[in-house]
């Protein structure tokens, strides 16, 4: 039992580190893209159909890459950014790049749910596009945005389990190396349980924040 606990500590911390960092970076990359996609849509507040089309295409292409392939493809980029292409920190690069287009689409669809009447009212009051984005679109869409970020984190927990393939460590890696390759079924089960608990915790927190935001309305 004790040995199991010791085995779990480092991979759990690695997983948390990967999820936290890749959530952060995928939001930094994906959030502005999502806003751009919403705003430049033909029905958006600053329609730019050709730009919207181009960005939309890039996002779709990135989203359709299988993660395992993407990890290998971004090796050179990881080397430039973090100095190495293997290890936990290196795996944050492909994780962020895989999640960013997903984040972009989720943010886009959350922002598009905002009542057009509200946007029109803001426009009638002389708001600039910037003010509409910051004062209307984002605050009004906040509950959906929180739900979207929750989904993103949960997806990243799943993806991060694959990081073992490039020596990224984490719980998924532990399950494969001990549980599968060394026939330690107990380790496999316990790692999966920890992942499950993580997912459950994230979902619970996300739902709770979302609910609290909605109650206030």
């Amino acid at each position: 039992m004790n040995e199991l606990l010791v085995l779990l500590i480092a991979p759990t911390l690695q997983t948390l580190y990967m999820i936290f960092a890749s959530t952060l970076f995928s939001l930094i990359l994906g959030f502005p893209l999502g806003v751009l996609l919403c705003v430049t849509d033909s029905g958006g507040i600053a329609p730019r159909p050709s730009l919207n089309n181009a960005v939309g295409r890039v996002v779709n292409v990135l989203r359709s890459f299988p993660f395992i392939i993407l990890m290998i493809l971004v090796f050179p980029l990881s080397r430039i950014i973090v100095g190495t292409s293997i290890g936990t920190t290196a795996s944050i690069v492909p994780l962020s790049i895989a999640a960013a287009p997903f984040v972009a689409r989720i943010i886009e669809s959350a922002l598009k749910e905002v009542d057009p009447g509200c946007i029109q009212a803001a426009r009638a009051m002389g708001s600039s596009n910037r003010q509409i984005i910051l004062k209307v679109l984002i605050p009004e869409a906040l509950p959906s945005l929180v739900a979207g970020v929750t989904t993103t984190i949960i997806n990243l927990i799943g993806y991060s389990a694959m990081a073992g393939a490039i020596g990224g460590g984490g719980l998924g890696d532990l399950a494969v190396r001990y549980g599968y390759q060394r026939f330690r079924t107990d380790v496999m089960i316990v790692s999966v349980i920890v992942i499950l608990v993580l997912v459950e915790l994230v979902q619970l927190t996300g739902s709770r924040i979302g609910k609290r935001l909605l109650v206030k309305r």
Partner: protein
Amino acid sequence: MGSEPFIAVRKLKKTFHTHEGALEVLKGIDLEIDRGDIYGIIGFSGAGKSTLLRCLNRLESPDSGTVTIGDVEITALDKTSLNGHRQKVGMIFQQFNLFDSRTVYRNVSFPLEVAGIPKARIRTRVEEILELVELTDKINCHPGQLSGGQKQRVGIARALANQPDVLLSDEATSALDPQTTFSILELLKDINRKLGLTIVLVTHELEVIKYACTKMAVIQDGVIIEKGDVRSVFLNPKSETSKQFIKINDEFLKDFVVEEGGGI
């Protein structure tokens, strides 16, 4: 004609391009509204009345023609000056269009934030205006906690917060029950009296015009077919549509004549 009217609409045209082809919504509208008027524009749905109203703050851009308010030609403004101008034209809507994420206070403060007014002055102004619409006790509520009538009062407070010269009302009472409609119209008349605000309202309900307006125009198929004092249009409708409108409302026309036409 004498002096220029406060709001002048000249030869305004607008065509929408839809999947089914071009739809000419405004076919050369001429309209003049004096300062302090409560001007009602009535028409059946699809007549173009909302489009006309939305051309006054350029939520809709006309294809040709001009709109002048005061000495500003709205149709000639660039984007930045248009935003500055819009800050001085309030607008209220059928569906209220309040911001659900903001409290009553922050809904009313929105136009002031947009106009870059300092925080301390925002507070006094919001409190003042909420008193005018009698919603001081709801200051920290969210729109979801209010009734339809209260929501529209917040809408009015928000529209008036930045002390506009004109208030545009787009079917603002159409989603309300008759009793609430009258209390909102009463409020609009009150504001018109107290602040000397010019109000342009669009409606499909003759009662609204009868109750609140000083002047009116009847619009049909993108053309103004009749305009003038509410009384003279009511008592002596010239066009078929006006007659139709008034025939539909025959019952209350009778009490209009009794009420207003005592001297006839």
